[in-house]
């Protein structure tokens, strides 16, 4: 297992996480995906959504860099967390079952994972 | 940035220098200078043309002496390679020098392919300098 896969797989230990992926925020390329791929969705679409928010919605508010996005649907949370690094930003994407997830807790753990993602 | 040449208009020379950027991927700037370190024409952005001109003469001079010491035949060019780019200095005829500045991705094959033609074009323009 690659270092990246090992790092990403730790996310699956968070209660409720059904799938996770690391996606290039600029190109939408999926570098790694673990768990249920259909839950996590397409990397290109995720990157486009993040760019749309950054470019169009961000300037209307405080602007600057996007930190995270949460998309809530009937049974699922879809969380996108920007990973800042020297180089183009990445998106840490996680799909969570609403039933099994405390969103605030999951977000905190996700933030923690994002920090140490690329070590 | 255009350099001023005292006697002749440098615009055609600059055009040839600028065309180098179109013909060779990765070339960013170039300077045409005399063998004794004077600026003739330049297509530059951030580099100092006069400084490049002076250094080119010194570089080729040292290169020629090294070639002589190594008994390696006549000098063709000097290539200076750095982490962030490279510089090639070569002769244009026997009185002028061409310094080509590029980033670290310069298309070396294309440069080798295009240099002779560029040198020819520059020589043809410089020949007009010589009073008939």
């Amino acid at each position: 297992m690659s270092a990246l896969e090992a790092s990403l797989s730790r996310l699956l230990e968070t209660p409720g996480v059904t799938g996770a992926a690391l996606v290039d925020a600029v190109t939408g390329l999926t570098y790694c995906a673990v768990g249920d791929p259909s839950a996590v969705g397409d990397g290109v679409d995720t990157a486009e959504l993040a760019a749309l928010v950054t470019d169009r919605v961000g300037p209307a508010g405080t602007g600057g860099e996007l930190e995270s996005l949460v998309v809530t649907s009937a049974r699922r949370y879809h969380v996108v967390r920007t990973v800042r690094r020297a180089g183009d930003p990445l998106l840490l994407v996680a799909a969570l079952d609403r039933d099994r997830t405390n969103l605030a807790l999951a977000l905190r753990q996700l933030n923690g994972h994002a920090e140490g993602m690329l070590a | 940035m255009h350099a001023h040449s005292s006697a002749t208009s440098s615009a055609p020379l600059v055009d040839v220098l600028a065309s180098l950027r179109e013909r060779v991927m990765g070339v960013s700037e170039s300077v045409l200078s005399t063998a004794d370190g004077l600026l003739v024409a330049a297509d530059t952005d951030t580099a100092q043309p006069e400084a490049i001109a002076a250094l080119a003469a010194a570089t080729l001079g040292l290169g020629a002496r090294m070639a002589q010491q190594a008994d390696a035949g006549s000098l063709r060019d000097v290539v200076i390679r750095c982490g962030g780019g490279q510089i090639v200095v070569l002769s244009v005829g026997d009185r002028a020098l061409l310094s080509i500045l590029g980033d670290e991705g310069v298309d070396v094959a294309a440069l080798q392919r295009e240099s002779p033609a560029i040198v020819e074009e520059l020589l043809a323009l410089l020949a007009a300098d010589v009073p008939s």
Partner: protein
Amino acid sequence: MTADGPDPRSADTEGDRSGRSGSPRNVPALLLGLRQERFSGTVRLFGAPGGTIHLRAGLIHAIETPGTPSVESALLKSGRVDDESWAAGLSAVRDTDGLGAALVARGSVGAAELEVVCAGTVFEGAFALAVGGPGEWETGDPAPTVLSRYGVEPQSVAEETTRRLALVSRLWGSPAELARARALPAGRPDVPAERLPHRYLGLLALANGRRTSRDLAFASGRGLFGVMVDLIRMNGLGLVQWEGRAPAGRPSTAPRVVGDGRVPAPAPSPVPTAHLPRRVPGGRRAGHTPDGARPSGGPEPTAPQAGL
């Protein structure tokens, strides 16, 4: 590299595996064949630009080309690894196949980070080669370079490259033209700098009307496709424009002026049009226009204009 039919010539694979050569359009088919053979070595492409594809057991571990920064360039330019560490890493290994691992062992770069950079660079290299257009190729023995630890399937690379080429064509025009186009800031005083992502600011600082998209990639240590995507987005926001194209991104119909080194004053920017693919309920991507190549020119606000 678009998917193409199998090349009959790649069928004669017995005997010496290196030293084959052939015609351009069949590079993707060549790579698929080499994958089946589990070929280890190089495929050198000649063209403008050309490049080298490094294979191990038929998987792509690195692509080097003048068209986009290498792994070394990306790591050094971004400051992730400094010159000293790089040199130290080089001296610690007998051949550069192990350079990546050496850098990780020294703590110069994280293992996961290096995987990301290497993978990203493979795709960027393939894109740059595809943009460069056709040329001859030949296979050769393994050559030294920084290899990613995990190779990428040629099929994946071909599919993603096709997608990228199509995206640029749809949003802007010819990818080869965009690679050579020289962007410059278009001046949007109503978007304060602190509201822009860092990488946009980075490109704005470097875009001077002289550097091409490819040059901007090298100057910033970023990939060619990533830079193109950002430039297209920034153009949509009125932040950059290209000489010879109307500010909205259409090719200009004004007569072309022979370059004399001077940059013409930018034309006043209209309301930015929608260049970004828009999400449409049902999932398919919007953005197709009748001519298929570029979005139509009328103003189409897609978001609150406050702040833009």
